[in-house]
């Protein structure tokens, strides 16, 4: 049984962004609005997605933490992103 007082690891915070070489029309539209609103300093805009995964178990042991990391990695690769055009980063807390 994990000690409930220990710091619990149970959330994965995932960012999915378009690869640099893929045109981002949404980002371009935001950029053009920013420019016309007087924010001339902004050079480029890229729009991405932010996803939180809340895991069932409170996992605090390092082996279980790794299991969550691996699961989040697999979910990000197979479902949350399309590797042809997107990349992702994961933060576990």
């Amino acid at each position, binding site marked *: 049984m994990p000690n409930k007082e220990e710091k619990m690891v149970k959330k994965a915070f995932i960012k999915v962004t378009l690869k640099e070489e*893929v*045109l981002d*029309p*949404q980002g371009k*539209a935001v950029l053009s609005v920013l420019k016309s609103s007087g924010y001339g300093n902004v050079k480029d805009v890229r729009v991405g*997605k932010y996803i939180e995964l809340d895991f069932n178990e409170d996992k605090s042991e390092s082996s279980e933490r790794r299991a969550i990391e691996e699961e989040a990695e697999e979910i990000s690769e197979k*479902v*949350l992103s*399309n590797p*042809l*055009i997107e990349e992702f980063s994961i933060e576990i807390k």
Partner: protein
Amino acid sequence: MIKKIKAGITVFPGSNCDADVYRVLNSVFGVSASFIWHKDEIKNLKEYDFIVIPGGFSYGDYLRSGALAARSPIMESVKDYSVKGGIVLGICNGFQILLEAGLLNGVMLANRSLKFECKDVYLKTLNTETPFTCAIKKGSVLKMPIAHHDGNYFATDSLISDLDEKKSVIFKYCDEKGEITASSNPNGSIRNIAGISNPAGNVMGLMPHPERSSEKILGSEDGGWIFKSIIKYIKEK
């Protein structure tokens, strides 16, 4: 007695062209078409002569168009069916689902205009030796409507070479005369691509809607050639 051709139409939450495909297949082309709910499965290859994945907004286009539907139980069945040589046609959102499921190669981006494009387009038929085009005269120009936000097909150069090599680019957007021009490209799709097949040729994805252009009263009957081709192919097989 001649056995009726049987078609299965997959239905996801948010599919909205399923009834159109059903009507056209049953009432216009005399096919015995029925719906397959996304939680069901295709039991064997003989159950259906072909499968249609219709257009719509499956799962509200959440995450990416087609991404969630591609991971539903029926798509495992469709994958299996296609590997065994079954004929699968994906229309619009159905095309996006086939891409997300990995049955076709490439990806759909948002239209270059960032707008939902809803209008008639012209299509040049590049390969008439497929189950989906075998009744069409080579080089024919067909008029069909599009209605999509994410129809900007994208593939890497090496993927495009593969498509070209296998003659897998089936339809390209063109003008009324059949010229493939930048101005006739409604969504920014790479090389004006509107429809592709898998290397084996038994799975095709098409952005325009043949089911909305198979009856004179709807302004064009050109889309009917896709269904006539499938029927011809099955009968001659």
